[in-house]
Structure formats: C-alpha cells, structure tokens
C-alpha cells in the first residue's frame, strides 16, 4: 500500500515540515543580518559571527563552549563504553535473572520527564554533599547519555549473528580475541552512531544542566539562555546557527557511518 495515496497526506507532511523547519531557516538567515534588529533585514553581513568571537559576550561564550565541548567528549566517551558493555551483556548474555529489569533501567532516562530527572539529580547531589559544578554536570550527562548510546549499539549487535563469534572461538580465538577481532569491528558502526548521538545529546542539553550546574558554571545552552533573558540579539542567532551546523554535521556523519556498515555485512 502506498502511503502517499492517503487523502491529505501531502498537505499534512508539508505542514509538519514548515512548522519544524521555518524557525531554523529564519534563524539561519537572520544570523547573517547586518542590522541590529532581529526582525528587519539590513543586508548580508558576518558581523554577528564576529561578535560571538570578539564582542563583549565573547569570553562568556568561549568558556561555555569549552565546557560544553569537554563535557560532551567525556560524557559521550564514557557513556559509549558503558553502553557497549551493556549491549553485549544484554544481547549476547543469554537469559539471566533481572534481564528485563536491567533493560528498563538502562532506558528509563528516555521515559522519565527530563524535569523530574533534573530535580531528582539535584536533590541527590545535595544529599550526598556534592557541590554543584563541572563534575555534577558531567555525572548527570554520562547518565542520560547512556540510553542514547545504547540504542544504536544494541540494534546493530542484534543484527550480528552469534555464529561469527562462534566461528572465531572455533578457530582458536579466546573470548577476548573473538570480541576484539570479530565482534567489535562488526558492531563499530553502531558504536560510532551511539557515540555521535550521545555527543549531540550532551552538547544540546539544557534542563538537567541548568539544575545541576551551580553558580558561575555555564555550558553553551545555559549561556545562550542567560543572554536571551536580557533580550534577543542577533549574535544569539549566529551562535545557534553554529550549533545547528555542528549537529547536522554529526548526524550526517552518523548516517554515512551506518551506511558504510551495511556494506560490510555478508
């Protein structure tokens, strides 16, 4: 059956696309606006990009960007390692007690409202006496990145038949060698996808970060939010456009990695 034959399918799709993408297009276009106004077009200019790097708010943005980047790198790496181990245990570990409970536990952060996690995490940190700051942001990010890294890795792993590892074991490979030489290369596209997804999610997070960041610590999203509270200036559009570009780049990368992965399957 062809979905496109449904009456109104085209119009509905178009409407969704417009609602989704018009703001992004507007922001991207107006980030190149020469005028100080955010609503009237004053010609093409790079001035707001220059402002982001050299303007009065530049040191704040630079510090925030550095925090965002390092947190995203560490959180994505750690979450990917944990998610990979979890995926191997869940997909290859056979049946074990508490398997479905474990699955729920891994994926819970996807289902619990973010604001609840934010509040709960903050309360937890203050209960154990951890001062909010870089470390608390990092811990929170690692935690909520795990399910995002887990899903593509587990999906990839599910598509890899266990006979490959058995063939390796049969040909005198130890468990570790079978993992390193056979399973890991085969699941690598999933691992990279998971890593990139976790990276974007961390880079992008606002709610949880805002709760656990503590005074004086900023990541890019919280810094942007802070700026916007004083009124929207076009430099915010420039910074947002740059973040959008990074996201699009990573998603595209993830797509191509996955597609290359399809080809290596026998």
């Amino acid at each position: 059956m062809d979905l496109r034959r449904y009456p109104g399918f085209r119009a509905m799709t178009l409407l969704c696309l417009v609602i989704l993408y018009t703001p992004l297009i507007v922001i991207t276009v107006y980030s190149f606006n020469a005028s100080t106004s955010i609503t009237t077009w004053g010609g093409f200019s790079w001035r707001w990009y220059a402002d982001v790097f050299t303007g009065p708010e530049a040191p704040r943005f630079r510090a925030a960007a550095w925090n965002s980047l390092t947190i995203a790198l560490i959180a994505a790496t750690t979450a990917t390692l944990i998610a990979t181990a979890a995926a191997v245990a869940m997909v290859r570990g056979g049946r074990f007690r508490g398997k479905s409970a474990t699955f729920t536990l891994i994926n819970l952060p996807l289902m619990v409202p973010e604001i609840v996690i934010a509040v709960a995490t903050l309360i937890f940190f203050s209960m154990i006496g951890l001062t909010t700051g870089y470390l608390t942001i990092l811990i929170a990010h690692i935690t909520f990145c795990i399910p995002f890294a887990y899903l593509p890795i587990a999906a990839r792993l599910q598509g890899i038949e266990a006979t490959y590892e058995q063939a390796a074991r049969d040909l005198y490979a130890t468990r570790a060698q079978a993992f390193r030489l056979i399973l890991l290369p085969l699941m690598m596209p999933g691992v990279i996808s998971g890593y990139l997804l976790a990276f974007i999610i961390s880079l992008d997070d606002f709610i949880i970060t805002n709760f656990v960041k503590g005074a004086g610590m900023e990541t890019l999203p919280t810094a942007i939010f802070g700026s916007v509270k004083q009124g929207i200036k076009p430099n915010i559009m420039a910074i947002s456009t740059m973040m959008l570009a990074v996201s699009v780049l990573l998603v595209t990368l993830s797509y191509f990695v996955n597609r290359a992965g399809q080809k290596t399957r026998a």
Partner: protein
Amino acid sequence: MNVSVDIRQVVKRYGTVTALHGVSMAIGENEFFTLLGPSGCGKTTLLRCIAGFEDVSGGEIRLHGQNIAALEPNHRPVNTVFQQYALFPHMTVRDNVAFGLKMKGMGLAERNARAGKMLEMVHLSAFADRLPAQLSGGQQQRVALARALAPEPKVLLLDEPLSALDLKLRQAMRVELKQLQETTGITFIFVTHDQEEALTMSDRIAVMSQGHVQQIGTARDIYEAPVNRFVADFIGETNLLPVTVESVAQGVAAVTLPGGHRITCAAAGMAPGPHHVSIRPERLSIVPTGGDLDVVVERVVYLGSDLQLLTRLDSGAALHLRMQNSARGQVPAPGTRIGLQLEEGAARLLAD
C-alpha cells in the same frame, strides 16, 4: 578401526526439552561419518556439543581418548563449517582462511603462504583479496571449507554445508568434499537430512530420531538391513507389513505373511508374536503361480526406466513394487490379481 571421536551417553537438555537422550557413537580416524535424521532430531545439537558451543548435560566426548566435553571451543582441535558459512565479513578471503593460523600464533608470512595453499586446493586463488560479500554462494562455501581445514584439525564438523547451494553445485560439491576428505585424511562429521547425500558420501551413517541414535552402519547396512521401523521407513522407499513370528530358532524366525504364506527371516533376538517386516519395492517380482503374497493391482505408475505398481493385499494393506520398464515384460492391468515372490532375504524382520 582407530577411534577418533568417541561419544558416550551424551545428554543435552535445554530447560525442559531434551535434545539428546544419551547418544553414543564411535567415529573412526579418516572416516566420513554422517549424522542423518529428520528436522529436530538433534543433529546440530550433537555437532555443537562436539565443537564446544554447547555444554553437555551428561556423558563424555572423547577425542583420541581425552575427554574434551568440558573444554572451551578454542581448546578443541576441531573445526566447523557452518551452515551459513559465517565468514568474517570485514576480512578478505585470505585473512579469513588465515584466521585460525593467526590465533594459533603462526607468523604472517607463513600463514599467508598456507592460506594461499588452502585457497589453491579449493580453486579460489584468484579471489584471495576479495571480501566474502563479493563471492557467490558456492565460492563462500569453499572459503569456509578452506578456513576450517587450514589449521589442520583432527576432526572437521560440517552442518548441512550444501543445503544453501543449488542442485548442480550441490552434486559437484559432494564429489569435491569427498575428495578433500580423502586427500586430507581428516575425520569428517557431516550433518544432513538429505538421505541421498548421506548414502552417496559416507563411510558410515548414524541415523537419528528424536534425540536417539537408531542405527549406525554403512549405507548398505542401513538400507538393506534396517534394525527398526523408523530406519526402514526413513531410508529409501519400503513396504512395512504386519506379520506374525511363529517361532525363533538359531537366529532364524519362521514368519507368517498376511495371506498365510510362511517364510523364514533372520531374527536377532526376537520373541514370537506380532512384528513388522520391511520389503524394498525393487525386491519383489511377479510370478504366475505360487507367490509369497497375493495382491490386486490398483494402479500402474510410469516412472521412465521403471514402473511402479501400487497393489493391495486382501487384508487391505497397501504394497508397492517396482519393475523394470522393458518392452518384453507383461504389465498387469489394474484390477488383476497377481502373485508376488520375495527375493531371498528381501523381508527384513524389524525390532520395532
């Protein structure tokens, strides 16, 4: 016979399902040994137990006297050709073949040379640098063989390796496999549910059913001297007739056929009473008078070089026979009553 693999009372349970009920068999060195049986009888399970992918629930698997049932797969000098080949998709054909050698610690130059030799043996030298996905099914099959043979295992396990190939290729591979086994001198344990494959390739065959070994013997043994109804029925075509054993003396049974005629059969420790005999259709012939069985012809089926006669005994039991389609032979018309003579030793008394 020097025993290579000695399987003793192997039991395998999956939860409440018992896949193998105390299976025993002794497989000789250099033997082409086949596990044959219907789907679900436990062939793959037994093979996986020998390879080490499954832990046995009981019993021993001895390889040249040493019990290997508790060893990890990488510590067993046994290699497997998987049904779907399981070639490593991210490695070239050469690296696939050399993988086992690498794991055994052989140096790069040496193992590549040896992989080259193995590929030559399976006529794939030109494909060494390709990825498995760039090969046809038959070529992948041969790479899988070369990969499993490269480390010179004591035993090669093959799980329905030909089932994914088309008929022509399958027949060619049968010959190639048999030749490989003879030139390498490695014990082959071959799994199939195709009896023709089993009969044409094997030195000996173990017929399995529902986790039990029914009979072990040469193709001739299991075809001509099936020990029970399952084997007689599973291997080739046969007629199973209910008979009465009147008496048994010195390994010979006096048997009354349906219709009252008496014959003698070889009987291995059978008590008098109701039993079954198996009679192969090609071992019955039509006689004008004094046959062992009286039947009415129901249908004549033309099979080219042969004719198949479907007949019925007065007792209502069906009986089919084959006769050569020669121009001289008189073909009885449906509805006529004919007498059938059993060839000497054609009736096999079955233990049930």
